């Protein structure tokens, strides 16, 4: 399977730490420590900057009236960019598989809303797996029979957590999350520069849910995977990929867990690489749930030269772990 094109879309509005601090009390010491560890210093939101301190989660209709982006509009934009990058036309796409953890309507599916907004009459449906969506979508489609896949198909993850956040200035989730969408055009028949060499997804032995989205987003910090454990998992996955595929560490870019960008120097050193090989766009865009890994992969892939590779390593949500290895041909 090949990645023929990638596309990313974010809302235009950027909110810095300074803006959030100006809205209320600062984070307490524990949350400030976590934020430093995650390394998120700005985020994109779907609302005008002057509106975010007025957001009331009790009035979703008023909230939507002020919004400048939705999961559908971001998904639409990301797919258009991915299709353009793939050098095909929209009407050549035969299937769209979508992940969305923040839908505005629970029916129809987000896949149908995005596909409909593109004017396409093709099969589409949601496959929702939270933060592991990129690895799951790839592994799932690589498990399909080739004759059941169209020539070109798209995976997209689109999330707008800003609709579920209270921007009071003292809420850790408000600092962490950002809105974004990432899409990829894939094919098993048309070769491209980026080849998917390996993928996997599996349930973690002791699953626990770190992030829940209901009427608001709850970030269960007590459930966080310990940093040491996560680092060990990434290092082992990297080591296996290097051995199995005969890759050199300096030819490998790592799209690892997106909530660990605070001390990249140390993180990279412990894995045996350098910070410039670690792709953590969440530090500037905010953490966009399932889209975050896709954005990291899209950015890392764009930097590859022939013979180099990107390894996506998922495992921070406490539910499942997954990997995708992409090489530049």
């Amino acid at each position, binding site marked *: 399977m090949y990645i023929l094109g990638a596309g990313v879309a974010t809302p235009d509005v950027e909110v810095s730490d300074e803006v959030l601090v100006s809205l209320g009390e600062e984070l307490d010491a524990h949350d400030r420590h976590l934020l430093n560890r995650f390394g998120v210093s700005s985020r994109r939101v779907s609302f005008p900057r002057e509106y975010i301190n007025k957001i009331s989660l009790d009035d979703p209709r008023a909230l939507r009236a002020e919004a400048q982006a939705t999961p559908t509009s971001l998904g639409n934009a990301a797919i258009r960019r991915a299709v353009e990058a793939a050098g095909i036309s929209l009407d050549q796409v035969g299937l769209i598989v979508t992940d969305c953890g923040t839908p505005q*309507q*629970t*029916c129809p599916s987000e896949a149908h809303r995005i*596909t409909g907004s593109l004017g396409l009459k093709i099969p589409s*449906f949601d496959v929702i797996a*939270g933060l592991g969506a990129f690895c799951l979508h790839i592994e799932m489609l690589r*498990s*399909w029979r080739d004759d059941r896949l169209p020539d070109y198909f798209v995976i997209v993850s689109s999330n707008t957590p800003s609709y579920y956040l209270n921007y009071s200035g003292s809420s850790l989730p408000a600092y962490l999350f950002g809105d974004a969408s990432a899409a990829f055009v894939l094919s098993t028949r048309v070769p491209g520069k980026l080849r998917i060499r390996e993928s996997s997804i599996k349930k973690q032995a002791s699953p626990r849910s770190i992030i829940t*989205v209901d009427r608001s987003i709850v970030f269960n910090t007590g459930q966080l995977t310990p940093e040491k454990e996560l680092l060990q998992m990434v290092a082992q996955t990297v080591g296996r990929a290097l051995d199995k595929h005969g890759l050199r560490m300096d030819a490998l870019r790592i799209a690892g867990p997106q909530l660990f960008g605070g001390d990249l120097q140390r993180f990279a050193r412990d894995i045996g690489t350098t910070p410039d090989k670690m792709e953590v766009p969440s530090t500037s865009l905010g953490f966009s749930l399932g889209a975050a890994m896709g954005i990291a992969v899209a950015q890392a892939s764009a930097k590859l030269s022939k013979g180099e590779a990107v390894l996506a390593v998922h495992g921070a949500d406490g539910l499942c772990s997954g990997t995708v290895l992409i090489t530049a041909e």
Partner: protein
Amino acid sequence: MLHVLGMGTCHPTVAIDNKFLEELDVGTSSQWIEEKIGIRTRLTTLPLDYIRTTRNQDPRMAAEAASMSPTTMGIRAAQGAIKQAGLTPSDIGMVIVNCCTPCGSLPSEAVRIAEGLGCSALTYDVYTACPAFALHLDFLRNFDESKLPKYVLCVSTAAMTHHVNYNDRTDGAIWADGAAAWVTSTVEPGKLQVLDSTFTADPTRCEAVIVDSFGFFKQDGRAVRDFSVRQTVRLIKVLEERYSVDWNRDVFVGHQANRTMLEQVTNNRGIPETNHWHNVTYYGNQAGAGAPATLSLHWDKLVSGQHIVVAVVGAGLSWGSTIFKVS
């Protein structure tokens, strides 16, 4: 080849009858409901007093008033399916779930249901609303069989009444709550063999049926009704020709949208009432759970050699079909 090894359902016990809806005084009558949609009662997880007094004007309160969540119904239906398949939750290697009224959007409904079952399988939502029965089977048929675990659990669950505006004279008459589950295998033969399946969509018409995350169900009734009948007939015709369906022996199960829509379909295809299985008259429209729940409730009536023709349509707009052969 994909097989269904066991099925299960869960429905609430509170029935909303037409007299109750008439007494809400929203411009409807028992006679109108019976003539227009052919539903006599619909099952709900909401207390009748809650509906009578609040008309569910703040749908966010429905979850708190309800006797069961979509997750609870999904777990109970799954337990029935797993038991009927002669398995235990630990045998299940993958769980996929369809739910158009989830308790929350993350983690997925599948995670919540698997957790309730005590099942450590890989879980994710595969979602399209009403035609989920066809989507899930077609989805599994897409896989290289060697890549699937031995047993896969599929669940479709919905608490549609939580999103009904009971001041609307039509919506309250249609919707119900319920769940259905089915265990599949490509390795072990089961009572139902999947001969064929389809799933597709025209998402340019996705605004025709909507359930707002925090609000009410809305639909373009006339457009959806015409589409449903026309598309269901088309799906059946294809299977009739391809598999020499004999309506004296074989059985039709459609999307349990409403009784009059199903009658239009069976009249068009010459399907006798005895060979048309449905539950919408007394259960109401259970969204994606309706068709599989109907089949599950008729499990003991399956006859060896019989074809079961399933044609389902719904939000998206999307549609799909499945034909089973009874072993």
